[in-house]
């Protein structure tokens, strides 16, 4: 069975590809380029197309399926028309699937389920990354506030940090919030 994975995010496409590689007798083709998509599709002649839901090429691709392939091998959208739960899970995860009519539902379902799992894994990764970036930004903010205290009050570093922590505890706030207030105040007062 040939599976085309169309995704403009190469990172996500490879995560999906990796996840699907455990399936037996499935050939995976990843397409990340929008240009020449239809020609590639004709060349690959896939049984299943997995595509990120928000992909801007979907209208073009659906038109292609509707017109060029209408007689030969109709393409059904999503998993199985009656299987609402599976479709909702797909949409929630952000994956759209186009499946050649005539493939047994039993063969399609595990593939799409796996794709949904991988899409979810990818968005978890992205959330983790965003969180990590946020943490990094927080640390920078605290460092900056520390430097301001060290400069303005002539404190050594451990003392500056202790002051930040004490203010946070006294006010029931997070250290980063105190740091943010100090940095903002410093900037407002004309500090660099």
């Amino acid at each position, binding site marked *: 069975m040939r599976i085309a994975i169309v995704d403009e995010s190469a990172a996500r496409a490879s995560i999906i590809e990796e996840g699907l590689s455990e399936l037996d007798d499935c050939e995976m083709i990843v397409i990340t380029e*929008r*240009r020449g998509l239809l020609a590639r599709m004709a060349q690959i002649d896939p049984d299943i197309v997995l595509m990120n*839901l*928000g*992909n*801007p*090429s*979907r*209208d*073009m691709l*659906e*038109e*292609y399926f*509707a*017109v060029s392939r209408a007689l030969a091998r109709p393409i059904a*959208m999503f998993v199985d*028309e009656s299987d609402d739960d599976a*479709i*909702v899970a797909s*949409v929630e995860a952000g994956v*759209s699937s186009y499946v050649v009519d005539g493939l047994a539902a039993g063969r399609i379902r595990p593939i799409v389920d796996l794709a949904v799992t991988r899409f979810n894994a990818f968005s978890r990764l992205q959330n983790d990354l965003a969180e990590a970036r946020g943490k990094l930004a927080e640390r920078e903010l605290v460092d900056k506030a520390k430097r301001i205290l060290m400069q303005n009050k002539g404190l050594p570093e451990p003392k500056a940090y202790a002051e930040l922590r004490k203010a946070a505890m006294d006010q029931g706030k997070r250290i980063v919030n105190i740091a943010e207030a100090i940095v903002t105040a410093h900037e407002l007062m004309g500090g660099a």
Partner: protein
Amino acid sequence: MTTQLTIGFLPLVDACLPILAHEHGFAEDEGLSLTLVKDLSWATVLDRLLYGHSDAAHMIAPLAIATTLGRGRPAQPLAAPFVLGLNGNAITLTPDIAGRVRGDEPGLGDPRVVGAALRAVARERLAAGRPLTFGVVHRYSSHNYMLRYWLAACGIRADEEVEIRTVAPPFCAEALELGDVDGICVGEPWNSVAVERGVGEIVLSTAQIWRRGVEKVLALREPVLEEKRDAVLRLIRALCRAAAHFVDPVNWEHNAQVLARPEYLDGSPELIRRAISDQLLIARGGKMIHYPDFMFQYREAANFPWVSQAEWLYSQMVRWDGLSYDREDAARAARVFRPDVYRAALLGTGEPLPGASSKVEGSISAPTVVGTQQGSMVLETNTFFDGSVFDPHDIEGYLRQLP
């Protein structure tokens, strides 16, 4: 108590009414809190609507009908209680071809003259084995139907002599540039983007093909409309106020700025302001022209969902999908447009409500006073460029006489 509604849209100027209803507080005044969700393809907008991510959507009218009739995917009944606008699209050709078909006209050409010249080009290209190719934004779009209507009436057979394929609006200019297509039929600001890049010239506005052609609608799943009927009525009132605001010249500059923001169209305020004010720069370095009612968002109860508009779209679906006319399908298509809901929302307001819910499309060639349920209404010219008239009582007869 505030009701929350989520509305899907594509970044096009005619997504303006839900955006402005939200931004100017018209929705809030009606006790609604709107969340607007932007997507890049109609397929995604439709998916979100069908699977409950959104309550309503900015949608190309024929797609609402196609979805109801189960064309291309399992049938799900949609309802369109409000028309988000008429026309606002244009046909843009590569500068080379535009130069050949435009003639000596300084502005937009006469559709008949341009069509006749294009026919010669189309024949030439067909003979050379490189048929002319047009991009439209979707198979089930008024763009596709308007373009095909014009070509056919000018003796150019779509699918046989010229090719028509789908190109997403943001990629239209690029498709012209790469030579993937020779022409596009798309909404603003995407024609102007092609003009700005010097890869296309605007030759016609779709308002020249059908002076009052239906364009986008507010679409909901029928069960959602029933379930949230009260909120939908309030939404219609908010959208109506947004429409009045949108067409007032005093607001053009500001509204263009709002629509241009990254979360909405993420585009040039200048190009958006041009569309709003019916100004078109048809060629790079050329003169700005004013084409009145290029976009038509409010006057003459423009937002009223005339059942005859849905029926015309159905007739074109039959025509171009190679279907045979089906009385049951025609009735289901007609029911997508919901003037009853529009009336219920605006009864007792200052908005005019027509007496009838259906009209003979293309029949009005001079300002005509029409009977109303509320207020007064004068309908201006609403003709097809070829003088043909669509009587919704005889769709089969209409289809027979089309080329």
